[in-house]
């Protein structure tokens, strides 16, 4: 009974709370703000005590991205791609390059092309392509986003590709904690061609423009200019899948919970005050609902994931 009274005091307009839910009083709202700040301080403090507790990409694993990609291909009547460790190392190197140089694009600001990562790792390709994604909380949402984009979908469902490599990197990109997924597609030079040579040549001429638009890029292998393949020495990325708490996801979930509860309490308050015709001094409930509604929309959309 006491608990029910306490809950009513906190969440429902009542005599005990001066006809306004205690959580909607300035003191209640500021307590929630204090809770959010405390949680952020805890997230900043935790890694110092338990270094392996926090991680950005707890739910993204390269093998899962490969599995989902192949699932989409099989569903569309194509052969699955073979996971290639050299391509994966090249994709990881591309991801680390983006973090190191602070860019989010297919081409680096210094002119480094995606294809240079293929050749640097000794992957002699007949066809090559790249899909990029960032800030997705799990593998399936990233693959779904690619499938919903015509150009990225074209890459995933391209019958010319035989192999795939995935690199997942975590770190700060221009000051923002980020998880980047690099998906490299390729067909080794020695693989049997699946399309007529004439058609392949025609497509290859469109390569530079196609890349910028994330359209599957078909390039002839630069045999004459290729340097001997170096031993792949990818920078070891953070171990993915071992983190227990994702700082961004947990912050997002806490924010969603607080705003969700407040919107519910405000809606109940609006109904009860109207029905009982309660006169009181206070802010406009409808205005607060609009404000928190905007915050809710931002939480749901902000950094929900981006692909290029």
């Amino acid at each position, binding site marked *: 009974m006491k608990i029910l009274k306490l809950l009513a005091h906190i969440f429902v307009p009542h005599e005990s709370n001066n006809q306004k839910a205690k959580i909607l009083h300035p003191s209640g709202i500021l307590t929630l703000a204090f809770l959010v*700040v405390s949680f952020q301080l805890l997230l900043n403090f935790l890694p110092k005590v338990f270094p392996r507790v926090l991680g950005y990409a707890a739910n993204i694993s390269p093998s899962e991205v490969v599995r989902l990609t192949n699932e989409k291909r099989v569903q569309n009547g194509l052969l699955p791609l073979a996971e290639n460790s050299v391509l994966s190392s090249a994709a990881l190197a591309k991801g680390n390059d983006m973090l190191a140089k602070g860019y989010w694009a297919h081409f680096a600001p210094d002119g480094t092309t995606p294809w240079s990562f293929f050749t640097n790792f000794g992957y002699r390709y007949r066809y090559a392509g790249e899909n990029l994604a960032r800030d997705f909380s799990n593998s399936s949402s990233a693959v779904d986003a690619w499938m919903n984009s015509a150009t990225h979908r074209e890459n995933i469902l391209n019958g010319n590709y035989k192999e795939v490599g995935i690199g997942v990197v975590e770190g700060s990109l221009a000051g923002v904690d980020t998880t980047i997924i690099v998906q490299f597609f390729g067909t080794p030079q020695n693989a049997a061609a699946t399309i007529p040579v004439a058609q392949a040549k025609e497509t290859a001429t469109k390569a530079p423009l196609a890349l910028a638009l994330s359209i599957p890029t078909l390039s002839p292998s630069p045999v004459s200019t290729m340097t001997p393949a170096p031993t792949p020495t990818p920078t070891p990325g953070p171990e993915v899948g071992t983190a227990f708490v994702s700082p961004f996801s947990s912050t997002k979930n806490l924010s969603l919970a607080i705003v969700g509860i407040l919107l519910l309490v405000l809606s109940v308050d609006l109904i009860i005050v109207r029905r009982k015709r309660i006169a009181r001094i206070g802010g406009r409930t409808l205005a607060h609902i609009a404000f928190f509604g905007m915050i809710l929309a931002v939480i749901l959309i902000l950094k929900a994931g981006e692909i290029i």
Partner: protein
Amino acid sequence: MRNFARHLPHYLSLFGILIAGFAGLILFSYDKGFQTVVAIATAASYVVWGIVHHYLHRDLHLEVFSEYLAVAVLGLVILFSLILR
């Protein structure tokens, strides 16, 4: 509803502020500095809207002001926790 209709011009301006804030935060989703400014501007505009609205309706009190301020602070803290994380 009658109350809402009476305050319609006020609410339209409030929705304008919130939509502008939302658009700014989403369109510049990878410009942290600009997002921070937009978040502060939106929260401050909300408090100012509350002051003007209640002043015009002659029911502006310290409790009302502190309520808008608390709501704006909570909104700002939540936005900062996401933008700066």
